[in-house]
């Protein structure tokens, strides 16, 4: 049997049936390419426009093509002071954004991991109650309690501070819920084996649970970093001092400055460059750590 087919294949190598054109596949790719263009093209067009003179942009709007202003516009966006008081540079905003992103992600992970550990791994009557207290916070996003939260920060004197910027954002259960789900998926026998091996709660946490959670921590870190970096409403309220502005908060300023009608030509190139800087770090993180990020995001749904 094997001999026969082999002989046949050798005998007529040129008369193989022509490969069927698979229209289905072509349609699939056409849809995907259209979708990808829909997602990529707007940002691409913003990027190429940055290379144009402000006058051109004011007159003709977004452009495709490559002129010579790209580097200059990015340089201005990073280092030239802007805003109403002309005190804040892109570098400063970038730093504030990084502080918010990292501070929020790290704070959230530390606090929620501790809480989730307490809830899952201890025989504590209070645990279910604590879980519900924490879990209820999922019900009310910051946006619906924005005014009282603002009042609280004001009365604590935390306006225009990093603490006031970061800590209230941590007051929701997403991270705790995440880690709780993950801890519950770890085989029960592991903690039993560790107990027989003489590991107490602290040892088990440090020796076993944290190393086991490494990918989960990375995934949550990415999600939380992006979430923190992209915060808008809260920073808008809590930071009135321009020196505390983040890049995303700066967008509001940009829009307002561009909307003013004055004698000067609005600095569109610089504004677009700033918006690009505001998206580059989170976009790079999401692209480079794609698999962790996707895992973390979809795992939360279980």
């Amino acid at each position, binding site marked *: 049997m094997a001999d026969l087919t082999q002989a046949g294949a050798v005998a007529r190598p040129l008369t193989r049936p022509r490969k069927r054109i698979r229209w289905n596949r072509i349609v699939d790719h056409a849809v995907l390419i259209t979708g990808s263009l829909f997602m990529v093209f707007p940002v691409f067009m913003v990027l190429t426009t940055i290379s144009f003179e402000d006058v051109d942009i004011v007159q003709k709007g977004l452009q495709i093509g490559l002129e010579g202003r790209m580097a200059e516009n990015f340089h201005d966006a990073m280092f030239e002071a802007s805003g109403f008081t002309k005190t804040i540079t892109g570098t400063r905003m970038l730093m504030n954004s990084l502080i918010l992103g990292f501070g929020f992600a790290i704070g959230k992970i530390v606090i929620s991991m501790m809480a989730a550990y307490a809830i899952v791994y201890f025989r504590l009557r209070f645990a279910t109650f604590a879980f519900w207290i924490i879990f209820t916070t999922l019900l009310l996003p910051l946006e619906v309690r924005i005014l009282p939260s603002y009042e609280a920060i004001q009365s604590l004197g935390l306006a225009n501070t990093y603490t006031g910027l970061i800590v209230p954002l941590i007051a929701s259960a997403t991270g705790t819920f995440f880690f709780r789900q993950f801890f519950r998926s770890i085989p029960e*026998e592991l903690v*039993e*084996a560790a*107990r027989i091996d*003489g*590991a107490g709660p602290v040892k088990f946490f440090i*020796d*076993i649970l944290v190393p*086991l959670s490494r990918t989960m921590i990375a995934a949550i870190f990415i999600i939380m970093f992006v979430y923190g970096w992209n915060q808008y409403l809260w920073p808008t309220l809590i930071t009135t001092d321009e020196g505390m502005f983040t890049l995303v908060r700066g967008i509001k300023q940009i829009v307002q400055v561009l909307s003013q009608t004055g004698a000067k030509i609005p600095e569109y190139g610089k504004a677009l460059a700033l918006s690009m800087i505001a998206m580059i770090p989170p976009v790079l993180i999401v692209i480079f750590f794609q698999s962790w990020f996707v895992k973390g995001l979809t795992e939360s749904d279980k």
Partner: protein
Amino acid sequence: MAQVTLNHVRKTYPNGHEAVQPCSVEIPDGELVVLVGPSGCGKSTLLRMIAGLEDITEGELRIGADVVNDKDPADRNIAMVFQNYALYPHMTVAKNMGYGLKNRGASKAEIEAKVQEAARILNLGDYLDRRPSQLSGGQRQRVAMGRAIVRDPELFLFDEPLSNLDAKLRNQMRIEIRSLQQRLGVTAVYVTHDQVEAMTMADRIIVLNAGRIEQIGTPTEIYEHPASTFVAGFMGAPPMNLLRADIAGGRLQLSSQTLLPVPAPQLATDSVLVGFRPEDVRLGGDGSAVLEVQIIEELGAVRLLHGHLGDQPFSVSIGKDEHATVGAQIITLPQDRVHFFHPDRGTRI
């Protein structure tokens, strides 16, 4: 090395469910005792109480001379092998085995020596630097064993350690575990739902059903003299044939037409459960018993005939050299190996 004593040990969950009814057992030093029963019978709960992973609701547990009810698992000087092995996935094989010793404050050299020794015994020498995910199922099983050995425990606890392995490996590991336990002379409690494992490995078997001990005995005792219909049905494959018969005039009547050609016992009840092991029944005879064969199963070494005697299901196991066909088949029931059980309570008479 130690003997283990359970004195009216009982487990009741907060929701009122009684997982283990008060039970008393004494496990002599160096013996391997198998807890066997269907799932949910309480065998794992009992083991976990011995390990200290589950609180004991009532009663007293001694390992050696000490009452250990309130001791932490780590302080009971035990070692446990879990069904899914529970290896620490982020640690190498060597670290996995040495973790318990490290927590007890053993020196690096001591840990190293003990791990090497365990690896030698279990043929794991080449794998010490690997992670569990890089090992086959059988190798993981060995690492779990190794983790137990390095602790030099007084008591080994096994929770269905072989059920995640394929049939061939299971047979091999069964022998390995048994010989290792005998060589080390450590007392062991072994939980399984597999009656073959129970029969082949145990010094003594404890059969559990619905949180209650049905019978304690050596494999031979359990097999030859099952204390109840539950034990009779659970131990042995194919299980013992159980026929319900009426006692009429000193004779056993299966139905209005069929008599059971064995002498009836002297009983107060007017019916009885009569048990025959399939391999105790022979082909041929005087025609007093006729098996209506419906299906013949070839197992290689033996051949199983499934059918009806009277109108009750009945199976017979015959040697590979004997021949039988579907249809009526004359059989001979053994006169000496007959088991009688109470018709309602199922207890042995």
